């Protein structure tokens, strides 16, 4: 209200009610109360800013404005405040805050000191959901945050006084992409290296739902190394969501040499003859003998399903993968409506399929040696994730 009386250029927006409702619904996907609220504020901030920037033709120059991958957003907001968008080559971090006294920009250390997270610009976005208002108070560069900002080692945030922010966003719009990296960024150290075993232990420990402040629990360097790796970050998120991940990556390349983990049994040991018949029905184009077929029994709540993997070599580089979900043992139905999603290791969805209790699921694709993917099986509100490497 007051802003519009005094200043010709203020970046205050009314948040459409629909955006608020959507953000609230999305945020309920998070397990923990803090993460739900954090996701809500960030979703409002991200969607609101994107909508307003686009409405204002921002940026006027060529570079494209790209939002944040939803999965990346979800796993970020489970543990850290802030979002990132890109404008051409430039990364712009949107840091929402609720403070009425808009006296400082607080940027979590992750957004400054983790190389893969760092941005060129940081926007101070005040989100006032109860007034349906979003206000962008100004921005600072990475360099300013590092040089003029204060790092508080207890809260692990950089703080910059609002008086040091550039308030006129027209300036950002007009100059974004025109500064050299040396003008926007300060030097930061490469992240520490973390052995996979160490990372898996950390994921178990920090992923516990009883751990309310995971980002403050271990030294920053360790935490940074974990988050710098999208696969580990994704696993951490799964863990905090109470979704089972074993952390074991099934090596499909080994299967070609006859190496199987004992969890992967031959198909006829697990599937009833009727299911066996269904499982080979439309793979008929391939001689069944040329195929490697293994099943893993996966517990989903009280019930269980069989995950069947059919592997066929296409050529030296490529394999055909046929994934199926079947009832196990004597059961003729799946324990509930089931969804199978094929995801990258970072959690981006590649494909998905759904089935009612009376059906089975099939998903076929080709993949190259060296590639990785994960499967998310959702049944009876339980989620199980299996990871694979070729």
């Amino acid at each position: 209200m007051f802003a519009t009386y005094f200043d010709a250029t203020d970046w205050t927006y009314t948040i459409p009610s629909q955006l608020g409702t959507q953000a609230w619904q999305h945020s309920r996907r998070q397990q923990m109360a803090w993460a739900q609220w954090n996701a809500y504020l960030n979703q409002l901030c991200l969607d609101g800013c994107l909508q307003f920037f686009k409405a204002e033709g921002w940026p006027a120059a060529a570079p494209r404005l790209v939002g944040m991958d939803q999965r990346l957003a979800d796993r970020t907001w489970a543990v850290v405040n802030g979002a990132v968008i890109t404008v051409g080559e430039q990364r712009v971090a949107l840091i929402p805050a609720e403070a009425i006294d808009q006296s400082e920009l607080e940027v979590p250390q992750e957004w400054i000191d983790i190389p893969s997270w760092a941005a060129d610009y940081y926007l101070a976005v005040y989100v006032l959901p109860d007034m349906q208002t979003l206000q962008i108070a100004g921005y600072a560069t990475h360099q300013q945050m590092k040089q003029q900002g204060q790092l508080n080692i207890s809260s692990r945030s950089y703080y910059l006084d609002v008086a040091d922010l550039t308030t006129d966003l027209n300036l950002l719009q007009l100059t974004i992409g025109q500064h050299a990296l040396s003008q926007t960024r300060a030097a930061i150290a490469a992240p520490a290296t973390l052995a996979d075993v160490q990372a898996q232990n950390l994921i178990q420990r920090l992923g516990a739902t009883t751990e309310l402040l995971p980002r403050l629990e271990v030294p920053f360097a360790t935490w940074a190394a974990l988050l710098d790796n999208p696969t580990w970050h994704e696993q951490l998120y799964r863990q905090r969501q109470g979704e089972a991940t074993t952390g074991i990556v099934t090596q499909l390349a080994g299967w070609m040499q006859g190496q199987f983990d004992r969890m992967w049994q031959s198909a006829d040991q697990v599937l009833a003859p009727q299911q066996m018949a269904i499982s080979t029905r439309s793979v008929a184009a391939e001689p069944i003998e040329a195929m490697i077929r293994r099943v893993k029994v996966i517990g989903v709540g009280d019930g269980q399903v069989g995950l069947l993997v059919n592997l066929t070599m296409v050529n030296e580089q490529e394999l055909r993968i046929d994934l199926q979900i079947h009832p196990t043992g004597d059961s003729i139905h799946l324990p509930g409506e089931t969804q199978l999603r094929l995801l990258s290791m970072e959690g981006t969805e590649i494909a998905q399929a759904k089935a009612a209790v009376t059906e089975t699921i099939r998903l076929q694709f080709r993949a190259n040696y060296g590639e990785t993917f994960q499967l998310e099986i959702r049944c009876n509100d339980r989620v199980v994730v299996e990871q694979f490497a070729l």
Partner: protein
Amino acid sequence: MPKFRNRFGRCTGIKWQSQAELLTSAPSPKPPIPTGQQHLAAYLQESCYWTAQKTAARFSQLEFTLADYFQLISSETGRVLKGFNPNFGTNLKSYAPIVLTNYLKDYLRQRRAIDVCSDWSLLRKTSQKRITEVLSQAGIGANELEEYQFAWVCFKTIAVPSQNPDGAVEKLTQPEMQQWGAITDLYNSKRHQQLSSTAAKLTAEQIEVRLTKLTRWIRAYLYPTVDSLNKTKPGQEQGEIQDSLADPVATSLLEAAIENEAQQERQQQRSQLHTRLAAGLAELDETAQKILRLFYQENLSQQELADRMAMSQPTVSRRLKKAEEALLAKLLDSVRSEVNKLPDPSELKQVSLALKEWLTFYYRQ
């Protein structure tokens, strides 16, 4: 504009919420304020008066008077001096109202937001910086201060609104017993890591007492008792506000000195800037020019502008921004051609201020 000198003496008509008894402020010795700054503060009085008058006229329905506004901003001239940079051809006297108005705008916004906030919402909606200021002003020592801060972090982690606040004023209620338990568990389990190894274990009651005190201190801090101009300014304890009000002789001498300081080079810079911007302005379409004129010359608010132009307020806002953006682009081009490169991102804001200052000056001629 009347010559303004110590006219208000004691301000008694202000209805501040008095909770000062909660505060125990311990003045610490501070370096003396430089005389030059005092003189400049005096020099800026006119700007303060002008800004206060404009605000008072605009918000006659609020509880504040012209005197209140004047007093609020005349202790903030340090802000003006901190941000001022004459290198971009700006003039202190027309730059000052921009900064002071922003301060006042922010003050009013905060007051309005705080008035409708429940105590527990307020606790969530206070910055770390202000929490620290509030605790220091309440006389809390360093170790205990960290304990308060960490209890506040635990509170913010646990006590989150469970309803979509969408549009309705958020009234976060007192945490329930089970939440106090969770806050306390979190505090106790992390205290050795976050605080010193000697930090004591606290009960839920103790945490609740501390956070309740903190909410009271925050409100008291935000509604200070400003009872007179004899109040000591923070950081400038050896001088009273009255000391920085104008002495007419000193003012005129200083004005002369500052006027002299406007050297030829700067004059030239200003006239170049003027020519470029005036040309840029002439290139804008008629509507854009009209909006700018009504805003800067007739001081219409965006809403008044919207009514006058038969547009929505968001449209007016967008048009104003676009108009200024076009001028800003011109200004950036001329700065770039002068120094052969784009100024560093951290220096850019001066360019924007120079534009606003120029627009204010241009339309008030």
